[in-house]
């Protein structure tokens, strides 16, 4: 069954390297047209392998992949005209200028915006005559996006577009990506930054060990934690997880990674103003003193830890 609203329909994807390493292990993925879809997962989860198979740059060991309703094997040329992408850590040709690089990429496509339009889209007008080797990390990533847009693609793949960038460059790039999504393009982006996924993506697939372990909007995924805030406590002695679960406002309890065994917990809570005093009262009642007390709004990072018991970034 072909669903015309799907930009990507991928079922039972498997990639085995050297006959033993299962980088992708039966992954299913449906990306709708016009949405910004995030693949979130730690390094080595299989995100890049998955994306490169979707981009037709890597052959799956097994599974069925349709991109824009077509298969790579049958329609490679037509598909290449309709997708754009940026690879992880793009290296450019050092001694070409920004403008020359864009002109080169533009020449590969039958249709697309002018070089001036591309420069404007990624805010590199002032750098048009700069050699790519002289660009900052953020400027290079924006140039990579500019190259990805050279054929006015319907579907855009961005592999870790902001990894290694400073906060300001990241925000600048987010703005560029958000504009593309507003303009109706389908964007698939991989990241291991949960804030990036929350900010940009309509839907997120959490990937771990080559499988999708959770799928939904960032809000839905966070809602599975049971509370919108997270409280992390480490005490000067053992804590009773069961009892903590019955404290006012607490919706979920699990051990805190990296804390002494039995002494640290992560609590998902609703209504911090009620839950926090209740938690402190309970600790006092058991004669425990908190040595660490942290709270933050629940994020996709918490979802990942909740699902796998591991941190997203190690």
């Amino acid at each position, binding site marked *: 069954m072909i669903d015309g609203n799907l930009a990507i329909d991928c079922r039972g994807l498997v990639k085995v390297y050297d006959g033993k390493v299962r980088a992708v292990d039966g992954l299913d993925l449906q990306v709708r047209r016009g949405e910004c879809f995030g693949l979130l997962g730690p390094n080595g989860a299989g995100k890049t392998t998955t994306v490169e198979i979707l*981009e*037709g*740059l*890597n052959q799956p060991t097994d599974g069925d992949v349709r991109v824009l309703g077509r298969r790579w094997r049958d329609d490679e*040329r037509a598909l*290449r*005209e309709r997708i754009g*992408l940026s*690879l992880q850590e*793009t*290296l*450019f*040709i*050092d*001694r*070409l200028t920004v403008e*020359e690089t864009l*002109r*080169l*990429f533009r*020449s*590969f*496509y*039958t249709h697309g915006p002018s070089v001036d339009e591309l420069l404007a889209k990624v805010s590199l007008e002032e750098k048009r005559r700069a*050699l790519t080797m002289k660009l900052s990390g953020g400027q290079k990533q924006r140039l990579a996006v500019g*190259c990805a847009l*050279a*054929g006015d693609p319907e579907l855009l793949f961005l592999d870790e577009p902001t990894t290694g960038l400073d906060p300001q460059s990241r925000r600048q790039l987010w703005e560029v990506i958000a504009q593309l999504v507003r303009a109706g393009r389908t964007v698939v982006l991989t990241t291991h930054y949960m804030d990036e996924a929350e900010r940009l993506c309509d839907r997120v697939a959490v990937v771990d060990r080559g499988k999708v372990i959770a799928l939904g909007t960032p809000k839905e995924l966070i809602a599975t934690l049971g509370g919108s805030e997270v409280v992390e406590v480490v005490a000067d002695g053992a804590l009773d997880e069961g009892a903590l679960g019955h404290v006012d406002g607490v919706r979920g309890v699990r051990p805190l990674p990296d804390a002494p065994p039995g002494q640290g917990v992560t609590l998902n809570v609703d209504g911090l103003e009620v839950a926090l005093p209740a938690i402190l009262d309970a600790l006092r009642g058991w004669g425990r003193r908190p040595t660490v007390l942290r709270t933050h709004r629940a994020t996709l990072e918490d979802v990942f830890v909740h699902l796998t018991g591991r941190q997203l970034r190690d």
Partner: protein
Amino acid sequence: MTNASLAQLRELTLMRLRTFFREPSAVFWTYGFPLLLTVALGVAFRERPPDPVEVAVVDDDAQAAPGAAAALARALAATPSEAHATTLPRAAAERALFAGKVSVVVVPPSASGDRPRTYLYDPQRPDARLAERIADDLLQAADGRRDAAPTRHETTRAPGARYVDFLLPGLIGFNLMSSGLWGVGYVLVELRYRRQMKRFVATPMRRGLFLLSFVLMRLVFLLIELPTLLLFGALAFGVPMRGSLPLLVGIATLGSLVFAGMGLLVASRARNLATVGGLINLATLPMTIASGVFFAASRFPEAVQPLIQALPLTALIDAMRANMLEGAGLADLARPLAILGAWGLVCFGAALRLFRWHG
């Protein structure tokens, strides 16, 4: 070819030209280095009278008559164009001989007459045998020997027979080989290694045009390399060009294509720069030595001649030398040109089959 394809080919070729000319070291190795090499070798083998042979006369021999060494040295020095003599103690003279500073050592005869005048030299060294003959001739003449028959000696120095004339076509061939292999092979692997090739392959870029741009770039460079070296050779050393110039350009173009194809072939599978560097050295080193760049390929033993004659650089240099120095025409060059053509077909054919675009 459609306008879109032409635009693509133009951008790809411009990319190569821009990156080349913006890389000063690449420009030096392609143009500066062969010119410097020609100058250096041209100066080393510049036209001048032949050097006199270096002779040492032993002046501390206990059995020799006093003053014998000085007399021998004077007799040798009487003809300064032929010999240059130094008097040295025996030990120093032998050291100078072993070090190659003198070619022959002369020991004066013993005063008693039971040991004749003696020459010490290594007959394996061509210069030593010549020096021994010249020194003995000069000393025998000084002793009063007369020529048995009158002789006359006529010498010629024709342009075209000098070392620099021999060298220039060799250097041009060498240059076409190394710039083809490095400029195509190395650069392609660099693009693959830096994952730029993968990025290109992710676009609808015509892969054939991408490879064609490398070949085109080599032909553009040929139009700069060839006139530079030919003009320099003609103006600085008067190297002759006896054959047809269009034919010479044709030979060089064919050679350039062959080595561009060989560059594609070495780049077809290599994933990193060390591998392709090794492959290029593996291909160029035997040809640099055996194909007659610096000395005639015919110096190698008869048994390996078929192998050497089949090398593309041998064919290229032979054809260029025959054209420039002997004025050979197309018909005379059928054999080397056929060898080059065969290499071109094999290299391009294999490269296009083996070329790895992904990974």
